[in-house]
């Protein structure tokens, strides 16, 4: 049973560019959440997708956007990259009607130069 798969694993981008990160949830899960983890910090919630819609959103600017596809996979897009966007981006999948917790992927390490 495959867990959560994220791609790419590492990425280097230049300030001002745009980036797309991808996530395939664990089999049977219907909800995908994205977290940003800066170096030495705890993960911070970006947003959550369910039924192809953004269901909840954390305190992140509109430069951060996402999408969920009919097969439950998801993308995180970040526009106009800033140096401060450098972080580990984690995807977590779950079942919306609770009870089973979250499964995290291995993350995408984004470096903005």
């Amino acid at each position, binding site marked *: 049973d495959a867990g959560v798969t994220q791609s790419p694993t590492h990425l280097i981008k230049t300030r001002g560019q745009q980036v797309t990160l991808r996530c395939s949830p664990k089999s049977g899960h219907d909800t995908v959440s994205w977290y940003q983890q800066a170096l030495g910090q705890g993960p911070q919630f970006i947003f959550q997708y369910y039924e192809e819609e953004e269901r909840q959103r954390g305190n992140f600017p509109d430069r951060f956007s996402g999408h969920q596809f009919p097969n439950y996979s998801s993308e995180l897009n970040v526009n106009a990259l800033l140096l401060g966007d450098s972080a580990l981006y984690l995807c977590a999948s779950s079942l919306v*009607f609770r009870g089973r917790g979250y499964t995290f992927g*291995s993350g995408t390490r984004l470096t903005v130069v």
Partner: protein
Amino acid sequence: ELKVEQNPLFLSMQEGKNYTIYCNYSTTSDRLYWYRQDPGKSLESLFVLLSNGAVKQEGRLMASLDTKARLSTLHITAAVHDLSATYFCAAELNYGGSQGNLIFGKGTKLSVKP
């Protein structure tokens, strides 16, 4: 606003010793998680605590939850080097009874020395 505070943030232990990591959260949350993270790696789920008084144990780690005090603890018994990692607690922000999102503490970096 739900806030989660962990202490200590750094913990250096000798092998064989016991210690406790504390996790306080500011508002009602009925679901508390503990994760382990090795350097450069993702989050490994350790425990999910669902109700007041819940206690779970796995090997040398034991977690408990007191929802009245808004406190969870992670107790380490007879530490070994393999337990060296960063430990996060996270409280789930309720969302109308369905899956909410997690608010994480800053993490406790544990180093176990011989």
